[in-house]
């Protein structure tokens, strides 16, 4: 998609100057399509300059099942993506507020969740619980990493349980669902946000559109599984265009910063 000077919108095929496209936050000025961003770009987009500190970056995938072609896939992804796995975790400041941050990387095997993604998400949630930090997650995922079989499925339970840990320490999880958020990631931490934000136009769902179409044998309604559709059905709090995302996060974090009334601790933390 990227050439040196121009970039083409995958939705309407309009060609944009890269410099203009960058200053428009990688959103098509013609059709409003939000291009997928890698973690470094997201961090620039949302965090105060120079505040991101990486955590758990040394976790690397194994091939626990000896699954055909998985090692090769990992090698390619490790060489070409921005980190060693499909999620980058760390701490940063948004506005002037410290947060624990996770950003998923669509360039790494479509941000599918294997053991490392699950482990980094769980570690980040535990880290934030221990230090009393709110958590912001910029999420996208093609679903579970099937090359890790049942171990990838178990990451759903692991991450959902870790969100509970965070809540035990009365810290919020703010999720930003971006295109696409599907499968096992949606059905675990992505749908457990205290405040759920989605980017304009993002595809969000559990089952893939093709699987649904095959099962029911009829065409899907227009706009099915878009962020706007989920908002209408009551599954999200806010849908925002990318240019308003940082400001929205700052406001939500500010509101969570002070507690006018003492919170009772639950026994189940």
């Amino acid at each position, binding site marked *: 998609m990227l050439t040196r000077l121009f970039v083409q919108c995958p939705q309407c095929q309009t060609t944009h100057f890269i410099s203009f496209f960058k200053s428009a936050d990688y959103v098509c000025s013609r059709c409003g399509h939000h291009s997928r961003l890698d973690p470094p770009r997201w961090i620039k987009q949302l965090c105060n300059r120079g505040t991101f500190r990486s955590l758990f970056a040394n976790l*690397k995938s194994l091939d626990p099942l000896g699954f055909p072609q998985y090692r090769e896939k990992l090698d390619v992804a490790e060489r070409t993506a921005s980190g060693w796995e499909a999620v980058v975790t760390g701490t940063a400041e948004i506005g002037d507020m410290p947060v624990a941050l996770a950003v998923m990387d669509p360039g790494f095997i479509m941000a599918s969740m294997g053991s490392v993604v699950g482990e980094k998400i769980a570690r980040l949630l535990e880290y934030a619980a221990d230090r009393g930090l709110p958590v912001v997650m910029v999420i996208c995922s093609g679903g579970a990493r099937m090359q890790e079989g049942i171990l990838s499925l178990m990451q759903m339970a692991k991450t959902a349980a870790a969100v509970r840990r965070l809540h035990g320490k009365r810290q919020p999880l703010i999720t930003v669902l971006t295109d696409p958020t599907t499968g096992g990631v949606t*059905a675990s931490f992505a749908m457990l946000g205290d405040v759920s934000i989605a980017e304009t136009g993002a595809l969000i769902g559990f089952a893939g559109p093709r699987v649904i179409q095959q099962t029911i044998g009829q065409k899907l309604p227009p706009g099915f599984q878009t962020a706007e559709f989920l908002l209408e059905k009551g599954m999200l709090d806010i849908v925002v265009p990318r240019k308003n995302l940082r400001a929205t996060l700052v406001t939500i974090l500010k509101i969570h910063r002070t507690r006018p009334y003492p919170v009772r601790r639950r026994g189940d933390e």
Partner: protein
Amino acid sequence: MKPAIDVVRLARHPKRPTSRDFIEYLVRDFVELHGDRRFADDPAIIGGIGFFDSIPVTILGHQKGRNVKENIRRHFGMAHPEGYRKALRLMKQAERFGRPVITLIDTPGAYPGIGAEERGQAEAIATNLYEMSGLRVPIVALVTGEGGSGGALGIGVADRVYMLANAIYSVISPEGCASILWKDAGKAPAAAEALRLRAVDLKELGVIDGIVAEPGEGAHEHPGETMSHVRKAIAAALQELLVLDAETLVQRRYDKFRRLGAFTLDDGFSELI
């Protein structure tokens, strides 16, 4: 050891005992309870209360049909969000009254459909994982047939997880895996091997606590004997779990799922951001 695809066929065998058969055998005075109090009663999940030995329990599971007509009504054991929400309602009720929970897993997966997505299939499963990880009563899960992906795990976060010897538990069906990876659903036998979805595989991977034997050709040939093995396994698990206090129980359940996964630490990582 049987080829994985043969086990897949046994796990899906039309004569295999369903959750209702297990409940009839295991639980005395069973009272079926219905509905999620939000939208509907999902026939793909049945649940209720009764006595296991002399212990009051809540028991629930995916329900496949015993024939084609019933299978269509029950969506082949594929639950909608209201099924997961009914399950959660029954589990919270069990927690309120200090009853242990038994779950029976047998589903191709969560139902993929328009209504299911509209009503929050992902949210329903996510919430069950979240709530089950903190439930303050013992939970014992048994995969009786097909443990299909998130739809199975949605009632599978338990203190003890067992599988019948010819059950399967997988992140994706072998057919789905083969068609994504090799664009050929006919390569399901190879995918079934690669996914390591048999009970013996899961035991080796440390994901389940034990395998319940199926005599001879399998549970459909010898349901009574199979069920008596199931009864013994559940009784032993409950005996161990009922003596633990809730904090210990919840902490151990957290640790049990927390340690699952395979990764390495590589400090040669060069910071790229």
